[in-house]
Structure formats: structure tokens, C-alpha cells
């Protein structure tokens, strides 16, 4: 299992690349139909890596090793819904799941409900200094002067996913709140504060991964 340890949070983070396993080996028939319908090789590589990472994360969360029992039900513009398929019976899996992919690599995070998780994966170096104001509030800019700029984007996108925001949410409507040591302790969205914790790592050279977990109070 390709997991990054985070002992203080109940969550599983898994990685995958599009070359790890043949798609036919771990996709269900329904998933394979979606896979073959996707336009372009680049999109298909990212998608299949994302599904593999997601199945690994969900499997670790519920304590199974056989990915064949997990199916990810497709939902447009949202993380898929995982279900456990045993024989002909289908059982919902009560986890929060988030997937990110970039250039044939993918990461996924799963955590038992009612936790809410979000993940983002980016290639480092994609954010110029002058562009921080596009997605960070003034308070965030002042609190994060030593943090890599692409990591900040990834954290903000991970928070956006964890909160279930839609495309109409302005980037600065979400605000990450940091403690004196620079760790994220809460996230604000439209005036509501939620506890939060984050993990940032470099799973592959040149890439940054951000995971945020929060919950409804």
C-alpha cells in the first residue's frame, strides 16, 4: 500500500501512477466503460491513476486488501462515491473521499465520516509571487511568507474540496487559519469556522501534495 503516515489523523493517503497496474486489473466493468469514454490519452492516464489511488485509500481505511470489492460510482464534478460490492450486494462505504491527479500521477485521501477530506497534487513552481493575491486573503499572505507558493495553492484547493464548495465560491471566501508554528488549525468559510489539520509533502520529485481534513461542528 502506497500510504504516507499521518498518525495524528484518522485518514489514509494513497498514491498511484498510471503505470502501476493495467486498468483492466482493478476497474469494474462500469468503471472501465467510463475510462474508455474519456477524451484523450492524457485525461485517461490521470483518471485511471486517480481511481487506483482512491481504491487504495478506501481499502486501507476499511481494512481490506482486495481492491476488486471496491467500486467508485461516478458523479460529475464531485469525488466519486465508494461502495463495497460483494457477490451481487452493494454496500455504501461511509467515508469521505477526495482525489487529485497531475501528469499521470494521483493521490487520494479517505477518512471515516463525519470527517471531511480534500487533496490536491500539483507540479512545483506553478505560482508566481504576484499571483498570491488571487487566491489568498491578506491574513493568509501575512501568515505564510515562508511557505512554498504552489503548496499554498494546493492547500487552498484541498480546503475547497474538503468543504464541498462549488464553482461560485470566491477563492478568498475560504480562509486558512495558522497557529504560531505555521500549522493549520482551522478553516473559515463564509463566516463559519471549522477545526482543520493539514499534511503537505513531496510524494515525487517536483510535485507537492496537500491534504486537509476538517469536519462539521
Amino acid at each position, binding site marked *: 500500500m502506497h500510504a504516507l503516515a499521518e498518525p495524528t489523523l484518522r485518514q489514509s493517503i494513497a498514491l498511484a501512477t498510471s503505470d502501476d497496474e493495467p486498468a483492466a486489473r482493478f476497474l469494474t466493468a462500469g468503471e472501465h466503460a467510463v475510462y474508455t469514454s474519456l477524451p484523450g490519452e492524457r485525461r485517461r492516464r490521470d483518471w485511471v491513476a486517480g481511481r487506483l489511488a482512491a481504491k487504495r485509500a478506501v481499502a486501507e481505511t476499511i481494512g481490506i486488501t482486495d481492491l476488486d470489492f471496491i467500486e467508485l460510482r461516478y458523479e460529475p464534478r464531485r469525488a466519486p462515491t465508494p461502495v463495497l460490492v460483494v457477490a451481487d450486494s452493494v454496500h455504501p462505504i461511509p467515508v469521505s473521499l477526495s482525489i487529485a491527479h497531475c501528469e499521470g500521477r494521483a493521490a487520494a485521501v479517505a477518512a471515516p465520516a463525519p470527517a471531511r477530506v480534500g487533496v490536491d497534487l500539483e507540479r512545483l513552481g506553478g505560482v508566481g509571487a504576484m499571483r498570491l493575491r488571487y487566491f489568498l486573503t491578506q491574513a493568509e499572505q501575512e501568515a505564510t511568507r515562508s511557505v512554498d507558493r504552489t503548496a499554498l495553492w494546493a492547500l487552498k484547493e484541498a480546503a475547497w474540496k474538503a468543504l464541498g464548495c462549488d464553482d461560485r465560491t*470566491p477563492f478568498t471566501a475560504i480562509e486558512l487559519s495558522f497557529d504560531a508554528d505555521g500549522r493549520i488549525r482551522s478553516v473559515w468559510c463564509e463566516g463559519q469556522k471549522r477545526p482543520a489539520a493539514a499534511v503537505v509533502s513531496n510524494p515525487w520529485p517536483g510535485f507537492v501534495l496537500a491534504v486537509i481534513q476538517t469536519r462539521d461542528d
Partner: protein
Amino acid sequence: MAHGGQARFVRALLVWLNRRLAPAGVVIGPDTPLFAAGLIDSIRILELIAWTERATGQTIPDSRIRMDNFRTPARMAAIFAGEGTEHVGS
């Protein structure tokens, strides 16, 4: 129908998008969804914002920096390109 400022904005934007951000083999048009189907990575919105500010000569307020305002070139023009837009083509 788009007015003159919007039409100029879209023309210049499409030239830039197809040169800089379009994946190989894809031609982006006025109504092409930029992010919904994964055509362009979401982080690229930062380049779209910067281009739009250069093109219009105006700072985009925080409240208007949201994904849905950048979902297609035509949507960007409708939101950000006014009749008096003069800087398009930068």
C-alpha cells in the same frame, strides 16, 4: 450577441489560450469548457486571471475571482470585458 469589447476580448483570449494552454490536438473555442472536463488544470486559472487583468487594464476584485467566472472564454468576456475595454491584445 456579444458587443464589440467582448468580441475583441474573446478573439484575443482564444489566440492566447490556443497558443499557451490548449492540450495537443485541442482547439479551444468561445464555448469550450476550460476546467469542467479537465481540459486545463485548475491552477492555470491564475494565468487566466493575470491575462484578463492585463487585457482589461483593471484589477479583478476578490469577489469575482471564482471558477465559474472563468468556465469558458465567452463567460470570461461576459463578466470582465466591458464596452470600453481598450487593452485587449496584450
